[in-house]
């Protein structure tokens, strides 16, 4: 079996006195699509921030690409740059659409990314808006720019934090198709946080349920939705969990 890309071992994240994440063990394998589901405040976004090295764990270790990182460790830049995130609210720079998609490549000192940028803009259907100021875009268009910007980097791991929340079905379809293509063509590992169980079922090969910061269930998608082991996961799938 392939070695996991990520391994989280006895990992916690504490804010003040509140422990928001407490993962005993969780593996994420290269090229897979994992959906992280759970109620609000379950620690899903915190988990993504840890996976993107935006904040360190309070205790425990996070292994990525065979390298272990604890609370005091700073991952090297080249490793950090193999992962990126698309957040729920698209955060674009006050520049043109083209300049936004170019931004991540610029950070990496890549000057010849024109073809790549144009391909990504075509991928998300925004090539006609390349020169438009990014702040004039609609919510769906802005999210597609954020996705194009992330995909242009060809990351090993793309973290998606509720990327289609509050978007119309057309934009949802476009974004889902784009990330699926990215996964198929580049074997990019996708970790998707979503409240939409239909979306988790459509996209993911494996589903992880977080509840109060703990992993309650981690199973392949079919098992998760048809025969979950934990009764709380079953209640969550049936929509009976009150939170």
């Amino acid at each position, binding site marked *: 079996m392939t070695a996991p890309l990520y391994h989280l071992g006895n990992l916690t994240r504490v804010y003040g006195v509140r422990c928001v994440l407490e993962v005993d063990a969780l593996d994420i394998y290269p090229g897979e699509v994992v959906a992280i589901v759970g109620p609000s405040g379950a620690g899903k976004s915190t988990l993504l*921030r840890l996976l993107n090295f*935006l904040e360190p764990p309070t205790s425990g270790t996070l292994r990525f690409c065979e390298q272990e990182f604890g609370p005091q460790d700073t991952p090297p830049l080249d490793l*950090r740059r193999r992962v*990126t995130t698309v957040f729920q609210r698209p*955060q674009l720079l006050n520049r043109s659409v083209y300049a936004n998609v170019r*931004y*991540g490549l610029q*950070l990496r000192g890549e000057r010849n990314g024109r073809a790549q940028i144009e391909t990504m803009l075509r991928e998300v259907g925004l090539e006609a808006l390349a020169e438009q100021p990014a702040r004039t875009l609609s919510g769906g268009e802005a999210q597609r720019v954020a996705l194009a910007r992330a995909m242009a*980097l060809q990351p090993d791991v793309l973290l998606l934090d509720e990327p289609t929340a509050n978007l119309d079905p057309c934009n949802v379809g476009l974004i889902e198709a784009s990330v699926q293509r990215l996964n198929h063509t580049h074997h990019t590992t996708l970790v998707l946080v979503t409240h939409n169980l239909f979306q988790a079922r459509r996209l993911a090969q494996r589903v992880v349920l977080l509840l109060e910061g703990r992993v309650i269930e981690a199973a392949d998608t079919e098992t998760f939705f048809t025969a979950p082991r934990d009764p709380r996961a079953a209640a969550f799938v049936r929509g009976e969990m009150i939170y």
Partner: protein
Amino acid sequence: MNLIIRGLMEALRLIFSFDPALAEIVSLSLYVTGVALLFSALIGIPLGVLLGLTRFPGRRLLMALVYTGMGFPPVVIGLFVYLLLSRSGPLGQLDWSWLPRLFTPSAMILAQTIIAFPVVAGFTMVAVMSIDPALRQQISALGATPWQAAATILSEARMGLIVSLIAGFGSIISEVGAVMLVGGNIEHRTRVLTTAIVLETRKGAFDLAIALGIILLGLAFLANLAMLRLQGKTVDA
């Protein structure tokens, strides 16, 4: 009213006759203010970014000092620089050639830099702090180093940055107390528009004083207009 009209006529006469004495005063005013603003930007912008984007022990104290500096009376700063550079002062005793001497444009630049840099730092700090923390997180998530992140945030806060420069410029172009104290208003050496206005008023040459005042106002207006134009360009960019 008559005085003001005469002042206006005199101002036009001085400008269009290319009066060499006026040109000297105007160019020294612009030189002193321009160089002081440059130094203020070199100190104030990094300081504002540091205070706005990072957390370190003593940050709050430093912020309080910057805020105090923003409202510090220029004449007190002039007095401080005067005492510092005077022959018996701690810097006046040193025989370092690069140190500014009293009653020179360099001393005026030093005083104006001390007046303007807290203003630039304070406005820069507010400008970078007003950038959405979620955007800062996104910039890091895209793989920016701390330096790259700071540069990007500064670029995003460019409108506020221009405001900080306008405010810094405004705090020194019309300043008189400090430059009078450390410059001494010496003809052909340290006479600038503000000190010349004070002198002409004392002499009772009100029309000339008003003329110089109108020129000062015009210069300040043109400089601000230029910076606003730059700000407009950044909005359109």
